[in-house]
Structures are given as structure tokens and as C-alpha cells.
């Protein structure tokens, strides 16, 4: 019930809040901090955020509240933070979608590069190329040969336009220079259902969702999408091992403040983020999710800015080439 009491405090303080100008950066934070997650509660991004938020509140000595503002592929929540007061009390935790939105949405009311002040990278969740368990190919090499031969006869599930599972499929088809029949789903949950039931052939999804199914032998895993093998799935090769070069995809998550936030506040938040990522509970929980916190050297504004820039350029190209657009 303690949380409820704290929430009361949060509401009262937020209500009678002083204006941004009078906030003294050294004292920051003097009131609860809100992290907006642009997706609904319970999803993987929400889970990551809640774990980090809990550890950050310990470090900051103030409650860090998670607020879900879902809709329009994460652009509604991001837009809300872009327009929020830059006093360090409204932050955004967003994933790879931050870099794909400019290519997918023609009229975006904010600019991911200029309307936000990056705080640091949080985690990079690897993805896995998986298939129904009675799918013919046995290894990654077999899969590549099979897909090249059968092309559009192979069905590939994705979680809709702009979802990481779709991006992974685009990269894969690009690399193999072939075309699969893409079958969109409303999220990866229903897609996994159909994969388990053998209704479709393949999918690419983050380890969060696939690890337990792979370990139980319910689905086949062919490759991980990171440059190196990952600890929870030591037997699954990388794409490069199967001869697919330059295939590097992970669902990276970053923490942002609105542009123009005081540098001292950003520094304090970066420090707090690094402390949270070094926390043992966070590390263990991330491991359960099949991922890991980024090292402190990457949980910095520079590393996040660089990531965002590189990824935005990459996806602009891939998405334009595939002719995909949400609007």
C-alpha cells in the first residue's frame, strides 16, 4: 500500500507543481519523475521500463512512475513527451521504433533527432529466426537454401507494419534476395499461437517471447540476429555463421528527455540510469527476458544519439526499398 501513498503524493505534488523555470537543477529531483512508455502496460517495453524505473527511483530518492500512452506505433506517446515541459520530470522510454517512425509516418508531429535530449541506451534485446517445429530445414544453411528455392510458398508471420518482426523479415529477404509471403498479425502473441499450431512457417521475434518456446522444443530456432551468440540460447548460431553477412538487429531501448532539458539534470539521469543498469535485480530480470543491460559506456547520451542517427538512416533506406509506409 506504500506505493499508493506515494502515488497520492505524486498527484498532489504534480498538481501544485512549480513552473519549470524555478526548478533548481542541483536539487533535482524534488518530485516524482514520470517515464512515458508509448505502448500498453504488460508488453515487453513496458516490462523493461518498469524494471529500470524501480531501480532508478532508489537511486534518485524519488518515485519514478511509469505511464502508458499507447497508440499509433508508439508515436502518440513520443509526441506527448516531445511537447512536455523540459524540466526533467517527464521522460520517454522508447525502442527501435523511435528510428523507424520518420520513414513509416509521413506526417510526424515531432523530430526524433531534434525534439529529444538523449539520456542513454538501456538494453538491446536480441531477436531469433524461428519456425514451426515440423518445418523441413534442419539448420540455418538448410533454411537459407529452402527459402531461396521456395520463395513465396513460405509464409512469414509479422506483428504488423513497422514492428520489429517485420523489420527483421525485411532485412532477411533483402539479404537472401528473395520474397516470402508475409502474414501480418495483431502483435506477436497471436503470431506465436499460429506458429505453435503449425498454421504458418516462420517468424522472427525477440528472445523475450521465443526463448521458453525454443527451450521446450515447441518451435525451431535457426539463428540469432546479433553479431554474437547469446547466453540463454548457446546452441543457436548467428546469421553470420550461416553465411548471411552484416545482419545485425536488436530491439534497442533508449531513455530520452524533451529537448532543452538542463544539462545538469541530464547528467543526473544518466548517472541514475547507469546505477539502475548495474543493479543486480535488474540484471537478473533482464537475463530472464533473454537480454542484458548495456554496459555503462553505452548508457550515455552520446551512445544513444549515435545509435539513433545510424538506425534512422538505415531504416529509412530499408523501408523505402521495401515500399512500406503506414501513412
Amino acid at each position, binding site marked *: 500500500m506504500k506505493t499508493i501513498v506515494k502515488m497520492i503524493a505524486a498527484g498532489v505534488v504534480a498538481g501544485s507543481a512549480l513552473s519549470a523555470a524555478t526548478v533548481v537543477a542541483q536539487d533535482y529531483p524534488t518530485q516524482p519523475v514520470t517515464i512515458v512508455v508509448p505502448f500498453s502496460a504488460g508488453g515487453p517495453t513496458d516490462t523493461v521500463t518498469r524494471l529500470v524505473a524501480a531501480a532508478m527511483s532508489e537511486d534518485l530518492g524519488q518515485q519514478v512512475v511509469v505511464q502508458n500512452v499507447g497508440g499509433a506505433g508508439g508515436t502518440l506517446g513520443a509526441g506527448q513527451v516531445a511537447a512536455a515541459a523540459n524540466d526533467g520530470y517527464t521522460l520517454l522510454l522508447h525502442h527501435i521504433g523511435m528510428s523507424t517512425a520518420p520513414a513509416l509516418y509521413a506526417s510526424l508531429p515531432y523530430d526524433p533527432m531534434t525534439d529529444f535530449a538523449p539520456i542513454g541506451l538501456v538494453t538491446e534485446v536480441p531477436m531469433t529466426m524461428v519456425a514451426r517445429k515440423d518445418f523441413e530445414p534442419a539448420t540455418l544453411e538448410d533454411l537459407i537454401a529452402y527459402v531461396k528455392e521456395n520463395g513465396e510458398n513460405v509464409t512469414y508471420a509479422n506483428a504488423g507494419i513497422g514492428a520489429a518482426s517485420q523489420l527483421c523479415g525485411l532485412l532477411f529477404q533483402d539479404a537472401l534476395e528473395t520474397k516470402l509471403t508475409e502474414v501480418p498479425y*495483431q502483435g506477436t502473441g497471436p503470431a506465436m499461437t499460429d506458429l505453435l499450431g503449425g498454421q504458418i512457417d516462420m517468424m522472427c521475434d525477440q528472445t523475450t517471447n521465443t526463448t521458453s518456446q525454443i527451450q521446450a522444443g515447441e518451435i525451431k530456432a535457426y539463428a540469432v540476429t546479433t553479431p554474437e551468440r547469446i547466453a540463454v540460447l548457446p546452441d543457436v548460431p548467428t546469421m553470420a555463421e550461416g553465411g548471411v553477412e552484416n545482419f545485425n538487429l536488436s530491439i534497442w531501448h533508449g531513455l530520452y528527455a524533451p529537448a532543452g532539458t538542463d544539462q545538469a539534470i541530464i547528467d543526473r539521469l544518466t548517472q541514475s540510469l547507469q546505477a539502475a543498469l548495474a543493479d543486480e535485480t535488474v540484471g537478473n530480470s533482464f537475463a530472464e527476458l533473454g537480454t542484458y543491460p548495456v554496459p555503462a559506456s553505452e548508457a550515455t547520451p552520446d551512445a544513444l544519439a549515435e545509435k539513433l542517427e545510424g538506425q534512422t538512416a538505415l531504416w529509412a533506406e530499408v523501408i523505402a526499398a521495401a515500399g512500406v*509506409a503506414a501513412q
Partner: protein
Amino acid sequence: MDLFASLGLGFSVALDPINILYCFIGVLLGTLVGVLPGIGPTATIAMLLPITFSLNPETALIMLAGIYYGAQYGGSTTAILINLPGESSAAVTAIDGYQMARKGRAGPALAAAALGSFFAGSVATFLLAAFAPPLARAALNFGAPEYFSLIVLGLLVSIALAHGSIIKALGMIVLGLLLGMVGQDIYTGTPRFTFGLRELFGGLNFVAVAVGVFGVAEILRNLENEHEREVGVKAVKNLWLTRDDLKRIIMPVLRGTGIGSLLGVLPGGGHILSAFASYSAEKRLSKHPEEFGKGAIEGVAGPESANNAAAQTSFIPLMTLGIPAHPVMALMIGAFILQGITPGPNVINEQPALFWGIIASMWIGNLLLVVLNLPLVGLWVKMLSIPYRVLFPAIVLFACIGTFSINQNIYDIYAIAFFGIVGYLLIRFGCEPAPLLLGFVLGPLLEEHLRRAMIISRGDPSIFVTRPISATLLVLALAAVLVAVLPSIRKKRAEVFVEED
């Protein structure tokens, strides 16, 4: 491990005093929040989720499950008392439940819902314990073509929802299907009917539509004749079921339990159909179908049982396969993960105490729910003695705040006003709102499964009749139409002759 040893393990976890306490707190909080107008089970769980973070996994998940069925039950209470369903199944309960309340029979309606839910929940929990893995496997045979056929069957059967004109009911269903298509098309990303507003990309909010066409429309109806009589719900005659009531609800509860248990297992939308299917079945089988829509207690007991049974069995795909059957289950997955447990096929073997503990706690939770709610019936019914002129501003405000708190999306509130006036006009002109809501929730599923089936079959529509389950469902749908149409054709002929006299 055999069933009894497993259940023994489960009850040893669930009967731990701490776990019972949190189960009770969960059920209580779920009921109280779920009862607020404009807040359905999904929103309730999303709001209360953080409370469970500090608990250990078994306790946290037991409490969450408690919140879930508490919220579900609370939602039905609002539907019965003030005609405001918080989710699709409660829309069915509202049809006859609210009519019963208007006749001063809110007590029996609530009691029938509580008893039906308890019975259905107990049976479904037993099914979950005994047959979860094979049932989940069987459900995986349902692919896109099967779901499409199932939804077609559901839509055709549910014409029985209407107690007035059948064409108007069809019109309302189709209008609902169309409204369900507002938002971004998942196949191409094309925004449809959004007026360029990105706030509408995710589609219209169910709660906003339900609050509009049921709640606000009802308030406007009540304000029509204000000068002539005191409006709203009549004073309450008795709280408890009469012997006759009990006799009337036994079979509907049994049938509802069966229908709900089966449909709940299907992860692609089966649970949505459960309450509607049960209502249709009861109306068809009833000796006095003309009472339906005017306060038939069967129309409350059956759907409530079906809904609660489906709520329990929809845990089957989650707990045995790690796949969510609906948004609430997706939230549960998040809760599992936050507790350091990845839901999947291994949970049953690696965490037997957790798996069986949750199942056992569901039974205990249902018991607590009925123990908690039967006395509460009196309290809820008392709230009806609040004068309507005080009650309806409260309903309007609660609905606005509740809807806003879910996504902080102000367009959801504009939608309440829009659907309030549209709903009011349609109801005034003799259309009924329940079929519209059914269409609204099924529209996206119907389109999604149709298009997916066509992609998988590479454009060959024969996939719907060559797959045995799908073909069977379509034959049933055809039979349902014939059964409905034949008698009325015969009657028409008779009428024609009469008119010629």
C-alpha cells in the same frame, strides 16, 4: 504427477493465509474498481498491476487473478444497475439485467449473476486442472479459416440478441462491424476513417463506444419524460432469488458453463463469443422467448456463467503454452515476466507449485467472490435509491474520467459524445445497441481472419470448406439461418392471407 497430488500441492500454496489474504484483497479491489462506470477488466488490471510488484511470484499472481475475476464481476454489476457495460460480455448481461433492475429486480439479477459465475468458475477451474494441456493442443488446430467460420456462425446466431426487428438488428451488427474497422489496417498500415487523426490509428476505444451507446443514450432516454414521472430504476422489491427464479436459472447456468468453457480455450477470440452464444442459445431454447429483452433472468444467468467459465479457461493457453488469449492475458504475461517467470510450455514442469497454486487459488477466489458479493448485493441495490438527478451526473463524470485514465486520449471522450447521440437516435428509432457492440468487437477479427486465411490459401476460397472444422462451423451457420428463417417465412404466408381478408 497425478491430478490429486497436483491439486494437493496447489491447495497447499493457495490456502497459505498470506495468499488467501491477498486473493481476497485482489477480489475486493477488482470488484470495487471494476464497478466504476467506464472501467472494464482490462483497465482495472492495468491500473492495479503495480500494486503486485512488491509481492513474491505466487502471491502476486494469485492476487492478479483475483483482481481479474473481481473486475469482471464488478463490470457486470454496473451493467445490471446502470446499463453501462465495461466490456463486450457485460453488454449481453446489460440487455436483460438492466430491464430486471428497472422492474425492481436488481437483487435477483445480481444474485443470479453471482451464483452462475461461481458455479461456472468452479467447473471451469476443474477443467483447467484436469485437461489443460490436451485442450490447449486441440485449440491450436484453429487457424484463420476456422476462426473466420466461427465468427460468421457467431454473428448469424446472435441475431437472436434482438427482441425487435431482425433487419434493424442486422443493420446494427453491420454498422458495428464497420465501426470496428476504424483505425490503422494491420495488413497495410493504411489509416482508415481516421480523419487524419493519429489518435484514431488504434481504432475506437471499446469503452467509449459502450459508454456512449449504452450509458449516455440511456441517460438521454430518461431525460425525455422527466416531467411526467421520476425516472430511473424502480425501488427494490426483494434481494434474493425466488424458488421459481432458481428453477429457471439451473439449466441456463449449466449450458452457459459448457459453452463458455469450450469457447474460452480458443485463443483467437473465442471468449468474446461466449456470452453472446449463451444468450442466443437460451433465447432459442426458452419456452417464453418473448420475455427476453424485457427482464428474463435466464438472459442474465446464462451469459454470466458462460463469460466466467470462459474467463477461467482462457488461462489455459496462457499457462500451458504461454500465449495470451486476449488483452487481459497479455497483461498477465507482463506480470509473469516482471516476477521473473517466462510463461511458456515449461511452467507446468518447472514451477509446479506456482502453476497448481494459481489454479487452486482460482477456485478459492471464486468462493471469496461469491461470499463477498452476496452481501454486497444489498449495498449495490441501495445505491439505486440515490435520486436519478444525482446519479446521472456521477455516471457521466465517472465515465469520462475512467475512459480518459486508460490511455490519456481525449479523442476517446469525444467518441463518447458522438456515440451517445448516435446511440440515442438509433435507440429512439427502435434499434438495439447490443448487436452493434457485438459487431464492433468482432469486426476487426472477422476481417483479420478472412484476409489471413486468403493469404495462407493463396487466394483460394475453398480453404473454408476443405478444412473439416471450418466446414462444420459453416454448415452449422447455414443451419442456424434456416432454422431462423423457415418459421418466419411460413408465418409471413399466413399473415399475407390474413391481410387479404
